[in-house]
């Protein structure tokens, strides 16, 4: 590729200001001597200028306010979610703890055993399964209630 062809390939980028200084001066130097490249460069420069003056889309009225309102809503929902997560975790821990506390209490009252259908409810394993189930049911009920409230609020 000779110098003319090589410069010709660079005219669009030269007009867009996208060449390295060294390449730009090479284009400028050649365009001073070559009519064809000078005209080509002028043409691309005109394109570039037109591209900077396109009809502008105007942002819809109130878009910024709507965006801020959405951000606030998003932020409030995220805070709500975090709060609910903590609440449910606390509820599960409370359910588990109170299960063990009542185990100790019942043991102290009735002695070491409390049979129901032939199963000793005060057996450590039986009681822990029962208290975990109660804690799980408590947390799940809480989650359903919170979820229902959120849905209701969204609906309203």
């Amino acid at each position, binding site marked *: 590729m000779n110098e003319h*062809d090589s410069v*010709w*390939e660079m005219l*669009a*980028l030269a007009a*867009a200001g*996208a060449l390295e200084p060294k390449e730009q001066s090479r284009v400028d130097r050649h365009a001073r001597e070559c009519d*064809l490249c000078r*005209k*080509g460069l002028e*043409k*691309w420069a*005109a*394109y*570039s200028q*037109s*591209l*900077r*003056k*396109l*009809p*502008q*889309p*105007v*942002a*819809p009225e109130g*878009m*910024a306010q*709507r*965006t*801020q309102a*959405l*951000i*606030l809503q*998003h*932020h409030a929902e995220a805070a709500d979610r975090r709060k609910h997560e903590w609440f449910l975790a606390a509820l599960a821990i409370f359910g588990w703890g109170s299960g063990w506390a009542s185990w100790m209490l019942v043991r102290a009252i009735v002695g070491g055993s409390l049979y129901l259908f032939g199963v000793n409810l005060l057996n450590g394993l039986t009681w822990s399964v029962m208290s975990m189930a109660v804690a799980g049911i408590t947390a799940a009920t809480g989650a359903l209630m919170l979820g229902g409230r959120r849905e209701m609020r969204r609906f309203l």
Partner: protein
Amino acid sequence: MILAAAMSLKEFTSDREIALLKKRDPDAISDLIGRYQQRLYRFLVRMVQDPATAEDLFQQTWIRLLEKIGSYDARRNFDAWLFAIARNLSIDHLRRRRGVSLDDEDDSGLAMADRLSASEPDALEQLLDFERGAMLAAAIADLPPIHREVLTLRFEEDMKLEQIAEVAAIPLSTVKSRLHRALEALRQRIEGVL
């Protein structure tokens, strides 16, 4: 000296704004949205070609920005970071809508000299006679998104090539070749119309 002081003040303000954004300060958020409103909306309209979708993506951009602001590296250019978020959202939207890859560049394979000969009529002068701006905008709308992106970032946002590379997450050499192809494709469309 004055210029240097002004620049450092500007940077200080930016850093302060970023710190306020990290604290979700409503006034800082409001200021920033107001300041970037026109530019960001214009970029999104050019990308998705639909004002309602552009507004939706504008809102999503700010929500995403606030989600990610904690990991923002202050050494990065804020404009490029913001536009990269908007760009990724609009590309995701276009991918979902069309179900095709938008990264494929068209390449006619013709040499520039073959397509731009001196014997052609001066298309620009004719454009001046035929509502140049509107036609040019319509021609841009007809280009693939990756070409629209590079043109609007270079000519409307006046971004340096390095910034465009940061926004589009591509190497500098790819930005150059993409810009070259975008300009060529645009010229072909304009001259094809006339």
